[in-house]
């Protein structure tokens, strides 16, 4: 059996409707509240989650609704992990997709989603298989502040 290292986890599954972008980032911020974050840290998490979930909603299922899953995990030492998974079309060239300003989306997309995720979190990992789906893993360590953490 794999060793479970995380101390808390929440798993959310929702259809790829754009109304769920706001839901997902608010849910992630609520989960992260356990880490006694600063407003800036919460803003960073909301921003990165919004990008990851929007990518799944816009690109994974271009012609239909599909399933999007978000796992939120807390690790010892105040680290948050967010895993956003879809079972959609996949990304043929992940390196190219991560290039700033590259987009296959419409005019309301800027091509800056992965750049923002990289700027606002400590690490970003993207695994994708064409026809099978995409997994985006974001991690961020939160500063321990005076007063400690429950």
């Amino acid at each position, binding site marked *: 059996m794999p060793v479970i290292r995380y101390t808390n986890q929440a798993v959310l599954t929702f259809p790829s409707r754009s109304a769920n972008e*706001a839901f997902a980032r608010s849910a992630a911020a609520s989960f992260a509240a356990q880490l006694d974050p600063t407003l800036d840290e919460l803003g960073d998490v909301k*921003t990165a989650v919004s990008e990851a979930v929007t990518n799944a909603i816009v690109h994974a299922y271009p012609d239909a609704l599909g399933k999007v899953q978000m796992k939120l995990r807390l690790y010892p030492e105040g680290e948050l992990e967010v895993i956003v998974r879809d079972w959609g079309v996949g990304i043929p060239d992940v390196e190219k997709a991560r290039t700033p300003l590259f987009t296959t989306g419409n005019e*309301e997309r800027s091509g800056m989603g992965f750049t*923002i995720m990289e700027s606002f979190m400590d690490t970003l990992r993207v695994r994708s298989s064409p026809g099978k789906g995409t997994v985006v893993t974001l991690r961020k360590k939160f500063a321990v502040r005076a007063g400690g953490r429950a």
Partner: protein
Amino acid sequence: MPVTFAAHNRDLTLSLSGEIDHHGAKGLLEELDRELDAVLPRALTVDCGHVTFMDSSGIAVLLRLWQRMEALGGSIRVVGLREQPARVLRAAGLERMIQMEY
């Protein structure tokens, strides 16, 4: 997300509020395009004082406004930025193209 307009001659102020994300961006872009077509502003001020959240959809919205003002030969500035939207816009390097005030 709600948007209000105030035009004085050809000086146009757009006041945005709430959260700017992909869900609302398409409708917002259409509304902004219509207003710019109607006013053809020389000077555009985008007031973000009531924008509580923005992701990269906000970058797309401001880039579009910048392109349109370039095409009209006018100016654009963004005012009243709160911390989170300012961080997003700075991460995209938008302050190199658009005057921003906090």
